[in-house]
C-alpha cells in the first residue's frame, strides 16, 4: 500500500523537515533510495508521519498513478545520464516537450501526458541552472528526491535560516570590531594611521 511511502511529494503536505524516502513498491532502482535517518529531527518526523498518513489515506488512490512517475529522478524524466552538458539537457528537454505537450498528446491520455509534461518542465528548470542542479545532485546522492515546488518552499525556509545565521554572525563580528577599536590607538600600535590618529587627537586635545 502506498501509505508506507514517505515521499514528500504527496500533495497537501507541508513539510519543513527532511525525512526518508523509502523504496517504492514498483522498485526501479533499489539502491537509489537508501534509508537515511536525519539525526536532529526525530520529533519532526513524527509530525510528518501524522500528516502524511492523513494525506495518504485520503488521496492514496487518486495519486497512485501520479506517484508512479514521480519516483523518477529528473534525469530519468529527461532520459539522460547524470553527467551531461547543458546542450544535451536542452535537446532532451525539447524532445520530451514535443512528445508530451498537451496539444500533441493522444486524446485518451491527455491528463497523464500533461502531468508528465509539467514534470519534464520542472526537471529542465532545475537542471539547466547550474546552481540548482548542483543542489539537486547533492540531494540525489543523499537519497532524497523532492519535487521542484517542494524544493522551492524548502529553499525559502532554508534561505530564511541562512539569513538569520548570517545576521547572528555579523552581529557578533560588529561587537568584536567595537572591542578591537578600543585598543586600536594604544601606544603599542605603530602603524602609519595609528600614528596619524594619535597626532590628530593630541592636537585636538591641546585645542
Amino acid at each position, binding site marked *: 500500500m502506498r501509505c508506507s511511502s514517505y515521499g514528500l511529494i504527496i500533495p497537501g503536505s507541508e513539510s519543513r523537515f527532511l525525512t526518508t524516502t523509502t523504496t517504492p513498491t514498483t522498485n526501479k532502482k533499489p539502491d537509489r533510495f537508501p534509508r537515511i535517518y536525519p539525526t536532529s529531527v526525530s520529533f519532526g518526523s513524527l509530525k510528518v508521519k501524522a500528516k502524511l498518513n492523513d494525506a495518504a489515506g485520503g488521496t492514496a488512490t487518486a495519486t497512485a498513478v501520479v506517484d508512479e512517475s514521480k519516483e523518477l529522478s529528473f534525469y530519468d524524466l529527461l532520459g539522460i545520464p547524470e553527467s551531461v552538458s*547543458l*546542450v544535451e539537457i*536542452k535537446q532532451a528537454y525539447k524532445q520530451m516537450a514535443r512528445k508530451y505537450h498537451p496539444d500533441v498528446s493522444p486524446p485518451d491520455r491527455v491528463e497523464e501526458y500533461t502531468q508528465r509534461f509539467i514534470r519534464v518542465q520542472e526537471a529542465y528548470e532545475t537542471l*539547466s*541552472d*547550474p546552481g540548482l542542479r548542483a543542489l539537486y545532485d547533492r540531494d540525489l546522492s543523499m537519497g532524497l528526491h523532492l519535487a521542484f515546488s517542494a524544493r522551492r518552499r524548502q529553499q525559502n525556509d532554508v534561505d530564511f535560516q*541562512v*539569513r538569520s*545565521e*548570517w*545576521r547572528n*554572525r*555579523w552581529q*557578533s*563580528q*560588529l561587537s*568584536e*570590531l*567595537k572591542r*578591537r*577599536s578600543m585598543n*586600536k*590607538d594604544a601606544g603599542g*600600535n605603530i*602603524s*602609519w*594611521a*595609528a600614528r*596619524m*590618529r594619535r597626532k*590628530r587627537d593630541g*592636537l585636538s586635545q591641546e585645542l
Partner: protein
Amino acid sequence: MALSAFSFPTYVSKATNSGPHKSSPVTSHFFGAALFSHFSHKLDNHQIQLKKRPNGVCASLSERGEYHSQRPPTPLLDTINYPIHMKNLSIRELKQLADELRADVIFNVSKTGGHLGSSLGVIELTVALHYVFNAPKDRILWDVGHQTYPHKILTGRRDKMHTMRQTDGLSGFTKRSESEYDCFGTGHSSTSISAGLGMAVGRDLKGRKNNVVAVIGDGAMTAGQAYEAMNNAGYLDSDMIVILNDNKQVSLPTATLDGPIPPVGALSSALSRLQSNRPLRELREVAKGVTKQIGGPMHELAAKVDEYARGMISGSGSTLFEELGLYYIGPVDGHNVDDLVAILDEVKNTKTTGPVLIHVVTEKGRGYPYAEKAADKYHGVAKFDPATGKQFKSSARTQSYTTYFAEALIAEAEVDKDVVAIHAAMGGGTGLNLFLRRFPTRCFDVGIAEQHAVTFAAGLACEGLKPFCAIYSSFMQRAYDQVVHDVDLQKLPVRFAMDRAGLVGADGPTHCGSFDVTFMACLPNMVVMAPSDEAELFHMVATAAAIDDRPSCFRYPRGNGIGVELPPGNKGIPLEVGKGRILIEGERVALLGYGTAVQSCLAASALLESHGLRLTVADARFCKPLDHALIRSLAKSHEVLITVEEGSIGGFGSHVVQFLALDGLLDGTVKWRPLVLPDRYIDHGSPADQLAQAGLTPSHIAATVFNILGQTREALEIMSFKS
C-alpha cells in the same frame, strides 16, 4: 503612519518628460486620501489598480510586477533631490524609496539603454549608503561605475537621466567633472580600493574626519590591483570601508551563449564557501556553550576561545582578507535595507576601525523578473519595453566586427589545432563566446586580469601554441609592460586582437581606444596592422596566424561591417606583410588611410568627385612594417599626401613622416598633412557626433584637401553643408 511627517521642501521636476501626473507639483502635505484619489484619477488610463491601503499611495510596482511605458509613480523619490533629503526617513520609508528607485531605474534604462542588471543589484546598498553617510563630505567610490544609475538619481541628476550615455548628457560611469558626489572617475575596474585608500590617507594627512567607502564587485576582485590596494590598506591601517558586492557574476556579460556561466577563478569558490558555512556554525555554537560553562573568572580565556572559534568558522575566504589586514564582516544580505543600515551605522560610529571589509551578497538584476531570468542578467541592454523585457535591437545588414573576428578565428582554429584564444572576462564583448562554444578546451577566460592574460599567452607561445589574445584596445593599456617585456622583448609570437579601437560611442573616453597604434607601433618586434573592412579582417586574422616568429597585433573598431563580400568558408588568405594597396587611382592629392579610416577617405573622395577632383585613395594595411614602396610612389607622384587614422599622435602618421624624412622625400615638393584624433579626450556620445568632434568625418577630410589646395571657400562650403 510616518508618511505624513515630511517637513522638507518638495522636489518639482523640471524635466521634459511627459506623463500626465508630472504636470502638477507634488507637495508633501497632500499625502493621504487626497493624493491617492488624485493619482488614481490620473492613472486610470494606465490601467493600474491602486491598492486601497490606509497609509496612502502604494508605489511598490516591483512587488506587483507591473511595468508600463509611462513613468511609474514615485511619490517618495520625487521628494529626494540630494542625499540630505533622505535623512529624515524611517527604515520603512527607505524600503519604499528603494522600490521606487528600482522602478525609476528600470524606466530610465528602458528609454536610453545602458547597464541595467548591475544597477538593480545595488539599489538597497545605494539607499543605505546615502542614508548613513554624508556625501559629498564622506567619499563614496564605485568601482567600474556602471552600477551608479541609482546613485546618480539620488544625487541631483534625476532630471538628466534621460540623457544617459548620449552626447552632452550624463556619463555612463562616474565622472568628477559631472558632480561633486562622484569622487573618482571610473570605467576600468578594480581601481576603487586604491583610490579610496589614497583619499583616506589624504584625509589623515589633512587632519579631516570624514568617512571613505569603496564599493567593489567580486568580478573586479579578480584583478591584481585590488589585492595590491588591500595589502597596502592593511599595512597603513587607515580608517576606510571596503564593500565587496558579491553577486557570483565574475565574467561579463555574465553568460556564455548556452547559459549562465559558473564564476571564474578560485576566489569565487572561497566566497561561496563563506556564504554557506553551516557545518562550521554548529562548531561555533559548541564553542559558545563551552565558554559559557567556563564562567566568570575565566572570561579572558573564554574570549580567546571565542576568537579562536571565530577564526575557525570564518572559513578560508575571510582569513584571506584578515591576513591582508582588513577586518571582515559578513556575509550580509544585500537586499535588506534594515541589515545594511544597521551595519553601516555601527561601523561608522565606531571610533577607530582601521580598514573594514563588508561582504554584501546581492543578486544582479534583482527586482526585474526578466533580468533575473536572463542568462546575462541584462548586464548591458539597448532600449527595451519594460512590460515585456524585449529589447529593441535595430536590425543591421551586416554583423559586428566582433562577430566577424570570432568567426575568422574559428575558421583558423579548424585547420590549425594549435590556435587558442585568451580573453579577460569579456567573452561576449570580444566574441570569444562563439569560439568557446566551438572549442571549449581552447578558450581561456582569466577573469579581469589583462596583465596575467598577456604573460599567460606568452607562456603558451613558448610551448609552440598560437595564442590569440583578444583584449579591448583601452584595456590593453593595463597590460603594456607585459606586452613590452614578456612578449616583444623575447619576440614571442603572441597575436593581439584589439577590439574597440578608435572612438567607441556611448562608453566614452574611459573605453576609447585611441592610443593602441602609438604604443604598439613603437615596439621593435611588433607587426602592426589594421583592416579597412570585414573582409580585410578575415585576411588579417589569417596573416596573424601565419606570423610565427614575432608578435603581431591588429585593431578593429566597434560597429558593424560595411557589407563587402566575405571570403569563402570564413577562411582568410594571409596577406603579404608590409604591403598596402591602392583603392582609387587619381592625381595631385593622395589620401593614405589606416584601418577603417579608409572608409572615410573613400567617402571624402566621393564628395570631391563632384568638384572635379579625383583623389588617390590608398589603404596602408600595415603600420609596421610600412609599405615603403607605396609611400615613395605616392610622395613622388602627388603634390599632397594626407595620412588619416583614428588614433592619437605618435601613431601611423608619425611613422609615415619619419620614413619620409629619413628617405629625403620631404626635401622635395610634397606637402604632408596628418589627420589624427585631437589632443583632448572626446566625451561620450553617438559615434557620428564623436567623429565630428574629432574632426575625422569625410567632410573634414574633404575640407582639409581644399584648404591645402588653397580653395578655402570650397572648404567652408563643404563644412557648412549638413547632409
